[in-house]
């Protein structure tokens, strides 16, 4: 098993399958035309290429082999079958991608692999290099494809989608007309208002949550008192109660008191779902702050509350930022409570508005446009402040 002439063709064949499938899927999604990987021929040509790459560690012959694999695709026995009526340029792009993918992949994976016996290190590292390449492609594909479909569907028309669900090519000639779904959502479906409501509710939730959880977290982190341990455990316990169980009595209570169908009700209920999380994250951070600075403040005659306000809070600004971001994300993405408590279209939050679009009378591209509108703000926020966000996410559950 641990020989270059065995592991070379095996990894070559596997990599050929990965490349052929990847490029066929990518080209299908980009052009809507027929590209089909041929697994059997992948194994044959991949194994051959693997042997060639191990046997001939020179650039020239290797590129020749990769190009040959691509060119064979023009015949019926290639690693990828290209259907009738695919434009010449698309075909050329696909073959070029295939050749370069095969070449770069195989040179990386089979780097400096001797043809004969391998050491354990060489053997395992080759496998790891293959898995790494496969992993990047796999994860990128599963993450990117749904979001790609979401954005592209929102730009298409219903007929075009039904005609060929794979054809996501955009007609640039339509210009601004591409965004028709978005224009209609904002004009006819009040999405501007929903967006504003969502924003307003989320920001308010962040402030209320902080106002409650900062003192609480400080108390849990700094003071010794009876029931402290029980308290920090019950925070976690509450964190574990499923929302649907709470939503049931809250629905009844809100119906009876007339708080259902009001923004006030939503603003009252959202912070309570986020306070335990925020409290848990903040107390972990407060514990990590040195007590000496605070004690110095106390010695200089500040009261406890003044110490919190003047020393602890300024020191914990990064933690406050990540907690705020996390809470904002929870509130912005919240769906269940909004769905159960809001019926009046004039008071919808964005997620409730998107849920409304899920009906057979409203075309799919409107639904997807709504999904894009709900996703983009949170993504922008996330990418802009990714450092805070990842920190907040990891602190949100258990210390790393």
């Amino acid at each position, binding site marked *: 098993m641990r020989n270059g002439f065995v592991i070379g063709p095996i990894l070559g064949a596997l990599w050929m399958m990965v490349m052929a499938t990847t490029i066929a899927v990518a080209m*299908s*999604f980009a052009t809507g035309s027929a*590209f*089909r990987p041929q697994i059997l021929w992948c194994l044959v040509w991949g194994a051959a290429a693997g042997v060639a790459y191990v046997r001939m560690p020179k650039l020239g012959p290797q590129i020749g082999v990769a190009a040959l694999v691509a060119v064979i695709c023009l015949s019926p026995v290639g690693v990828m079958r290209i259907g009738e009526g695919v434009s010449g340029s698309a075909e050329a792009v696909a073959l070029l991608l295939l050749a370069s993918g095969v070449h770069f992949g195989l040179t990386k994976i089979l780097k400096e692999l001797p043809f004969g016996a391998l050491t354990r290190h060489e053997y*395992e590292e080759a496998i790891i290099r293959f898995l790494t390449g496969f992993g990047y492609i796999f*994860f990128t594909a599963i*993450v990117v*494809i*749904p*979001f790609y*479909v*979401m954005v592209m*569907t929102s730009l298409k028309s219903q007929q075009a*989608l*039904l005609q060929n*669900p*794979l054809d996501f090519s955009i007609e640039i000639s339509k210009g601004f007309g591409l965004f028709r779904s978005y224009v209609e959502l904002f004009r006819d479906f009040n999405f501007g208002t929903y967006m504003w409501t969502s924003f307003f509710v989320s920001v308010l939730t962040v402030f209320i949550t902080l*106002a*409650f959880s900062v003192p*609480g977290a*400080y*108390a*849990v982190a700094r*003071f*010794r*008192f009876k029931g402290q341990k029980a*308290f920090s*455990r019950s925070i976690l316990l509450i964190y*574990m*109660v499923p*929302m*649907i*169980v*709470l939503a*049931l*009595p*809250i629905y*009844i*209570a809100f119906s*009876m008191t007339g708080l259902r169908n009001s923004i006030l009700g939503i603003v009252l209920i959202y912070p*309570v779902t986020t*306070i335990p999380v925020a409290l848990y994250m903040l107390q972990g951070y407060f514990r990590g702050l040195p007590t000496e600075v605070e004690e110095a403040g106390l010695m200089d005659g500040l009261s406890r509350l003044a110490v919190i306000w003047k020393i602890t809070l300024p020191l914990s600004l990064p933690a406050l930022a990540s907690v705020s971001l996390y809470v904002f*994300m929870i509130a912005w993405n919240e*769906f*269940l409570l909004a769905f159960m408590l809001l019926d009046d279209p004039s008071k919808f939050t964005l997620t409730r508005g*998107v849920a409304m679009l899920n009906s057979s009378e409203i075309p799919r591209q409107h639904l*997807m446009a709504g*999904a894009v509108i709900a*996703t983009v703000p*949170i*993504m922008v926020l996330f*990418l802009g402040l990714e450092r805070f*966000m*990842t920190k907040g*996410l*990891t602190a949100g*559950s*258990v*210390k*790393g």
Partner: protein
Amino acid sequence: MSTAHPPTGTGALAKREARLAWGLLAPTVISVALVVVLPLLAVIWISFKPFTLSDMRPPAPIVRESLRGSGDDLRIEYRIRNSSQEEAISGVTLADRIPDTVTLREAVPAPCTLTGRELFCDFGDMEGGARERLRLPVDISDDPDAVEAAVEDSEPDVTGGGKSVLTSGGLSLKNYAQLFDGGEFWTVLWVTLFYTVFGTIGALLMGLFAALLLNKSFLGQGFIRGLYLFPYVAPVIAVAFTWVTLFDPFSGSANALLLQMGVTNEAINFFGERPLALIMVTVFEIWRYFPLSFLFILARMQSIDSSMYEAADMDGASPFQKFWLLSLPQLLGILSVLFLLRFIWTFNKFDDIFLLTGGNAGTRTLTVNVYEQAFAISNIGAGAAVAVVILVCLLCFSVFFFKFISREEGL
């Protein structure tokens, strides 16, 4: 001379600190009690009551007044009924003013009296589901439409009411009997376990794989890490509907792709067929939550002391050996904590399945069942009973969790 003793008991300072601590905690404790503890108690209470969606308002008499018939048959009709089918209401009275344009042809019937133009009726008690009809034959001295408007515009005053189901009557185990009776419950439980176990393990393994990929620094590492978090950060409603669109049997791209690649010959109804739908929602769960495991595992990996790996290198350990014998034991703690937490959260998950399949095609988990019972069948009591079952399960999990995590995390 007295000898000095070390202070015992709680000193004044400690007392003041404890007071301040509870002062700072009070707002949180009160609000959480109001919105979490109280509803939980309410759920347990409701689960012992035959409470349906229509019982949301306490039972009350409902009156409709109309002018009916024509000529000799012309009459004012009051129809009064009890809004509840089960609960009795008491002290039901009706008071109304007869319009001036109407003259009564007969004396008013039994439970009613007429003083001037004021009509007053006392129906006393009404059983659950009871209806009464009151007919007053009349002559009119005006255009019928105007009279009709006048009659129907004057709203009669109604009094009387009953106790809400919530506060009256005894407790019954009917909801639970009904729940455990049908074979459906065990199917639901099985589906929940499948979803939870495979969703958790899958997300953990995928997260581990992704973390291993990104546990080295290279150009664009930050970007790729951000990209891999997308499924978790995006609103669930957006990604769930995207999956539904993507896997639609008629216009979905996934089916088109599979058909084109010759994997299948006919479109697959991913979220509509029996075993497949459950697998698909589990896959969705894995897809959506692998970023979370990935983030935690990556954070732990980056905090492992690199000198250990250097020592292993000196000893000639191979990459696989380093993973099995060094990384994995170091990660075992975070992996088990993640497993427990994710297990509980996956068990609690509602939105995802609700949006993807609505609990159809064999994907109804316990949480979806709460919604189904309470709102689709509008039997809130039965929904609450399911909720109580969930709470009991969670209590068991959390006992286990705290036993375990106190060792792991020193909480």
